[in-house]
């Protein structure tokens, strides 16, 4: 099997973000970056296939400036075989521009499976994976939380509102990974050492045209400061009164 996993470097979300001087991006000073959660589960899914069939090659692809090489190295330290950086100074917001570059890289790669996280924590658009698959003309299943492969076909579970869908698809295919599929492994010390010697190629990203641009960013209005109305069971009548008369939701 030959598997590609497309990953994104995103900021740690556990901070108070500031808007950068351009007014249309987030100030990156002081932010910590790591592989996007959903993408780490996509890497894990590929590695679990490789665990069963060691002949499997796992190629990790990331689009962005040179700092994404760190993120690729992390996936290599988890156990992926080699990395490809599609180099661009700035990652466009337009998902189709990104998908075009990824499809150009993947098209003649001979991959049996191409995996993505279902969306990135930062741009939160959830478009690139399915759009890349569509540009490649491959079968696409999105937001999977369970996967079984049986030779030339597979079955995936998708969580939908109030239930699940079970989806059959032929390989080669493009899949995007939701939470629940697995828990990502931590890189071992041996894996970290080995990753330093694994091949990592850098080439220019062949981005598509952009028709969607961020014109400004802002922090959302703060919620009014929280209010504690009381302690213990004694506060319940006051809560019910407020829900009826003030919030009018009861």
């Amino acid at each position, binding site marked *: 099997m030959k598997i590609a996993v497309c990953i994104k470097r995103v900021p740690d*979300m556990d901070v108070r973000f500031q*808007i950068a001087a351009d007014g249309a991006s*987030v100030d990156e000073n002081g932010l910590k970056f790591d592989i996007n*959660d*959903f993408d780490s589960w996509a890497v894990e899914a590929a590695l679990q296939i490789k665990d069963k069939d060691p002949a499997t090659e796992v190629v990790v692809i990331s689009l962005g400036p040179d700092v994404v090489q760190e993120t690729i190295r992390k996936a290599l330290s988890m156990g992926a075989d080699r990395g490809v950086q599609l180099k661009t100074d700035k990652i466009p*917001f*337009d*998902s*189709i*521009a990104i998908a075009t570059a990824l499809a150009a890289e993947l098209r003649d790669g001979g991959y049996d499976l191409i995996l993505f996280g279902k969306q990135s*924590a930062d741009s*939160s*658009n*959830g*478009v*690139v*994976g*399915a*759009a*890349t698959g*569509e540009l490649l003309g491959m*079968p*696409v299943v999105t*937001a999977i939380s369970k996967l079984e492969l049986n030779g030339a076909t597979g079955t995936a579970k998708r*969580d*939908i*509102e*109030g*239930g*699940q*869908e*079970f*989806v059959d*698809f032929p390989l080669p295919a493009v899949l995007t990974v939701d*939470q629940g599929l697995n828990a990502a492994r931590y890189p071992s010390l041996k894996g970290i050492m080995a990753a330093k010697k694994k091949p990592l190629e850098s080439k220019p990203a062949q981005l598509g*045209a952009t028709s*969607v*641009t*961020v*014109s*400004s*960013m802002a*922090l959302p209005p703060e*919620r*009014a400061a*929280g*209010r*504690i*109305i009381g*302690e*213990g*069971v004694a*506060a*319940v009548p006051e*809560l*019910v009164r407020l829900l*009826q008369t003030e*919030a009018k*939701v*009861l």
Partner: protein
Amino acid sequence: MANILAFAEARNGELRKIAFEAVTAARSLADKTGGAVHAVLVGAPGIAARASQLAQYGADVVVVVEHPAFERYNPEATAAFTAERITSGGYRAAIFPTSALGSDLAPRIAAKLGVGLVTDVTSIESHGDALVVKHPVNIGKVVATVKMTATPALIAVRANTFTPAENPKSGTVEQAQPVGDPSAARVVVKEVKLGGGAKLDLGEAPVIVSGGRGLKAPENFKLVEELADAFGNAAVGATRAVTDDGWRPHTDQIGQTGRLVSPQLYVAVGISGAIQHLAGMRTSKTIVAINKDKEAPIFKVADYGIVGDALEIVPALTQAVKAAKARG
């Protein structure tokens, strides 16, 4: 002429609430651009009977495509039909739901048409030649204003944001044929399992009661369920800690990697308020928190907080809500 297309999501022959939200968003945009709203309704034979409901919310035309292979969601054939219709109809914009179905469908269409798509959109304005939309980024901690210059602009609206507004139009039914053979799709939804019929979905429930580790044991989730039952219109959610531990299914998880919700009322029971969780519920209209630690971050966003043991307070609240409901 600047007609707007709305994709009307149906499941099991019934329209979903977000179908009316998409039509409402399309109507509001069409009224600004001076065009008509065409709703696309895809389903098994008989789905055309639902067209009049779409007319009620502002669809001038309902484009119906019926085929037995549309009984369950058929991603490839639905995308092929809708993309072809968007192109041949010359629409200014197409509005999709941000839902399990819409998030799968809209990117396929964006790729087919080679135009940008913005999902999880909370507002849509028309500025000259461009459409300008708002889209939360960085788990909702930042809001991006996004300019869309291509025609058509593809927009997927956030659930529970464009409140369905009745605005009756003619809703002329136009029967259309599928593009290609829907039975020949490569990707096939072979089975759909739906949870207990009466339970409301998290994305659509006006009230959500959610539980976290403060409930101490999985069996105590029944207190959360009883409170939800007392409200009558409530769904049950959970934190990532609880779903990771297997107390509740992953599908119940509210947060950065789970569901994003914004109900009228969110009741957080035994939830400390980790960033990961707040990202999924901070836009709720009213937030109630019950937690034993008065320093817990959840109290910073709670409109009404009660400090104390959830296992004692929740049953009392359930009784009080039942009594309030009984009084009407």
